[in-house]
């Protein structure tokens, strides 16, 4: 019945419960501010999910829980970008030990010297300036 929809004192948006407390990216970012690399884990599929999202792509269910990575991984692939001006820099894909992959860069060695298969460890690149968010970068693990 239409009258059931009318709630006393209801203003625009009142009674609409937010589906999420915050966006997946906001949660991810919150962990980075705390020095942590966070990812999601699907309880249904028993596997990691990255990038963070609002549903599990393996089951379609709202079953994703946040976990914090140990920060260890392996270089899956690596390139060096040569801008028309400025220094060459590394862009890499990192396979984290928990079973998710992300884009990042490996800092320390010359960008050309970042080899596929290298063991790397996460650290936070702190926010610089008003508009920039922190982001994850990696350094070579001494073996």
């Amino acid at each position, binding site marked *: 019945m239409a009258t059931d929809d009318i709630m006393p004192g209801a203003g625009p948006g009142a009674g609409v419960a937010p589906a999420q407390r915050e966006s997946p*990216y906001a949660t991810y970012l919150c962990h980075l501010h705390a020095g942590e690399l966070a990812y999601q884990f699907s309880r249904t599929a028993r596997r990691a999910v990255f*990038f963070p999202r609002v549903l599990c792509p393996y089951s379609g269910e709202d079953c994703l829980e946040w976990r914090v990575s140990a920060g260890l991984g392996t270089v*899956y*692939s*690596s*390139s*060096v*970008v*040569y*801008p028309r001006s400025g220094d060459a*820099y590394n*862009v890499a*894909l990192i396979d984290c030990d928990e079973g998710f*992959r*992300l*884009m*990042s*860069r490996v800092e320390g060695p010359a960008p*050309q010297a970042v080899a*596929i*298969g290298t063991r790397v460890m996460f650290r936070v*690149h702190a926010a610089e300036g008003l508009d*920039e*968010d922190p*982001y994850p970068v990696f350094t070579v693990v001494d073996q």
Partner: protein
Amino acid sequence: MMNAFAARRQAVIAGAAESDLGEVGPGFSPIDLMAQGVQRALADCGLQLADVDGIFCASSQSRLAGLALAEYLGLPDAYIDSTSTGGSSFLGHLAKAGQAIAAGACQVAVIAYGSTQRSLGRKNTSVAERNPYEAPFRPFLPPTAYALAAARHMHEFGTTREQLAEVAVAARQWALRNPMAWEKGPLTVEQVLASRMVSHPLTIRDCCLVTDGGGALVVTSAERARDLRKPAVKVLGAGHCTTHQSISNMPDLVRTGAIASGQAAYRQAGLGPGDVDVVQVYDAFTINTILFLEDLGFCAKGEGGAFVSGGRIAPGGALPVNTNGGGLSYCHPGMYGLFLLIEAVRQLRGECGARQVPGARVALAHGNGGVLSSQATVLLGAA
């Protein structure tokens, strides 16, 4: 066995044409080039604009490309599909036009593309979409995405930069036989290797051109095409697969969705790689040709580098690949897929002059969209 009704409704390509290519100059819009392609493709098969009741198009420069082309052509009642899957859009459009014609939603469809990215500058012609999980690392996209795939291919299979360069050299040799090609001079492996590095291991000569250009196809039923000016080209099979959008989400950098899209197209056509006479694959970068020849079954996984070497895919080689000179040396306005189909049609009609593959009966056209993200395969047959 197809019944007579279905056979009459089978989609065929009746007309095909490029717009002006290269650098068309200031003031031209992408829709101008689409319309130029439509006019030439209709003239190619002898149909009129008034016969057209279906519009399929996509452009990175037009958010509502279907509306823009309907307005430009004055076709208020046309069936419209402006799905964009990047450079693979037009191979998808061909499959969808076939479905629309079979369903009776339209009778004569045009598939159109236009881009003025060279005249305007690339930064002015595509919408920047910031991925917060990639943007901080400043990948130079799209080249860095393909460079990451190339580096992984080299790591897993021992593929070399020289083998990547062989792809560019073969494309250039074909382009020298195509009067419409942008590049007019010869190219060697040594020149490719010595070119400016863009995103390692890819140099500027491993990367496609940046040109203007457009074109159109006219698609209709086999029955409607029977009396037209040129022999119709049959659509024998089509397949599509989307594995990711951003390169950091590609499940396996050396195995693309072309494996699935190719299998679907081969199955529908009842054909295999050994039946294909001429191959057109989207060579946005040299690694693409290697990946797609592997994934479409022309050689085993990991053997693509050796396969493309020694002139095997060049003029006179065992497998003619990208006979117009490809995105590497003929034309690359940003979403190249339509040109794969135009060249395949011309090869099957025997219209290719110095670059004609003698007696070509079956052509494979394979489109790529995004950063190895969307893969669309089409098998075409001569009348």
